[in-house]
């Protein structure tokens, strides 16, 4: 059982990685700052590095939401198994739909559902749930969105150039932001590694402690850190192209200065929140930033229909993962046969979704339509080209 749970946890880590590649790399891919494949490789390496940098978050994962310890209930590997099942399935569904949704919420939802079904309602600490999950979910996109809005405004104000005499617009020369995007998006990927790989480390450590192979109160072991870092890196490299398409092109049209502002806000928000102990979801922060930066630039529209779909997805994350978690917990309760049934059904569902995804493949080649991808450092020649195309597409955008 312990081995099964660890394998499942690593698979969750993998889905987490490919689900969240979009957070860091959707905007630079959309503006053509980095080639799609290079972008996911870069994100993978930085996730790997990030996972080793800090293990602060690992200690607090899911802490307090389910009453643990002497006066509470005992978390068993069974519960964690069921919770992970719920989280993985929900991650796969949202990936198939191309919706950026929080992997941590899926994990919390699955665990809560499993705990309720496996132990009972009193096992869940509602106040902590509100404080740690629901409120941050409301504020994360708002904070990130407002900051990204302000930053986009600043970036455009500082770089807008007019002829002092005639007042007509000069060449804006904002190509430098493309180079900047490489750094800011890298920072987001790094922040993601320090944040999200930790959750799986926390889970595996929890299992090892529950199984009695590790003494309580100790940090994650080295092989656990290594395995989790690797799983999330591989997942990131696999690239959730469907979600990248949504984040890079579905929400709003992203220009380099906008992308730079959005990524700076995302990175600041994630790093600040994980450092100051008010954990915000990476996905929600990143989505908020993209929307905020879309509102900040004149002449862009935010596709509110898509925003609505994403918000709806967020609403369903907790309950949906919870229900799957609860069902799995009930199955597992019946004994070894139940565990086998749950494992087989889960694998089957994942395989089925993978097969469905093959029908309309979204890969690095068609995730976002960018013709000049990867020429970030060669500005001179491309400038004229980009301007000509911008004019052809939309006269308003010719200021770029």
């Amino acid at each position, binding site marked *: 059982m312990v081995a099964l749970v660890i394998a499942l946890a690593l698979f969750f880590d993998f889905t987490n990685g490919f689900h969240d590649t979009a957070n860091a790399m959707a905007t630079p891919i959309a503006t053509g700052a980095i080639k799609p494949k290079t972008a996911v490789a870069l994100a993978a390496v930085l996730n790997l590095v990030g996972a080793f*940098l*800090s293990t*602060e978050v690992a200690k607090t994962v899911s802490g307090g939401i389910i009453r643990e310890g002497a006066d509470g209930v005992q978390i068993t590997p069974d519960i964690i198994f069921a919770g992970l099942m719920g989280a993985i399935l929900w991650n796969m569904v949202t990936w198939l739909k191309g919706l950026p949704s929080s992997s941590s919420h899926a994990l919390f939802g699955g665990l809560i559902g499993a705990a309720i079904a496996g132990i009972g309602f009193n096992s869940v600490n509602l106040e902590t749930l509100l*404080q740690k999950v629901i*409120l941050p979910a409301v*504020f994360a996109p708002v*904070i*990130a969105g*407002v*900051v*990204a809005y*302000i*930053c986009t405004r*600043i*970036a455009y104000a*500082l*770089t807008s*150039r007019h002829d002092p005499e005639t007042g007509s617009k000069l*060449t*804006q*020369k*904002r190509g*430098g*932001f493309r180079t*900047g995007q490489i*750094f*800011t998006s890298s*920072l987001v990927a790094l922040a993601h590694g*320090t944040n999200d790989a930790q959750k799986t480390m926390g889970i595996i450590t929890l299992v090892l402690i529950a199984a009695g192979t590790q003494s309580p109160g100790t940090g994650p072991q080295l092989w656990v850190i290594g395995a989790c870092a690797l799983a999330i890196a591989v997942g990131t490299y696999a690239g959730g192209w469907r979600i990248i398409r949504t984040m890079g092109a579905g929400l709003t049209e992203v220009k380099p*200065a906008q992308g*730079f*502002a959005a990524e*700076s*806000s995302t*990175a*600041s*928000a994630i*790093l*600040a*929140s*994980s*450092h*100051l*102990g*008010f954990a*915000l979801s990476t996905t929600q922060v990143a989505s908020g930033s993209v929307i905020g930066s879309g509102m900040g630039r004149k002449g862009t529209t935010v596709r509110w229909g898509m925003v609505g779909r994403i918000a709806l997805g967020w609403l369903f994350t907790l309950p949906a993962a919870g229900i799957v978690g609860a069902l799995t917990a009930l199955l597992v309760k019946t004994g070894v046969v139940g565990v086998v049934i749950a494992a087989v059904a889960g694998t089957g569902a994942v395989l089925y979704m993978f097969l469905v995804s093959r029908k309309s493949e979204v890969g690095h080649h068609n995730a976002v339509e960018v013709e000049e991808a990867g020429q970030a450092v060669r500005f001179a020649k491309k400038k004229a080209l980009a301007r000509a195309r911008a004019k052809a597409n939309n006269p308003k955008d010719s200021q770029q």
Partner: protein
Amino acid sequence: MKWLELLTVAGATLVAAVTVVVLYSLGVRLTAIAGDRQVTAPVWVRYLAYACFGLCGIAVLFGLYLIIPYFSG
């Protein structure tokens, strides 16, 4: 409720992001001015642009230094 923590996070996010964006934007702007063909800009403009990019990089590194426990203890 942890309203204070929420405010701290919001404030820190704003300060960090605005610092980075302002410095980088200034850098981009100054590079643009330095690169103008028609109007000959003084040489220091280009160096000022480099200084802005440099400061921006330092701001980011300082942020990382604050966050990674290995360095800040």
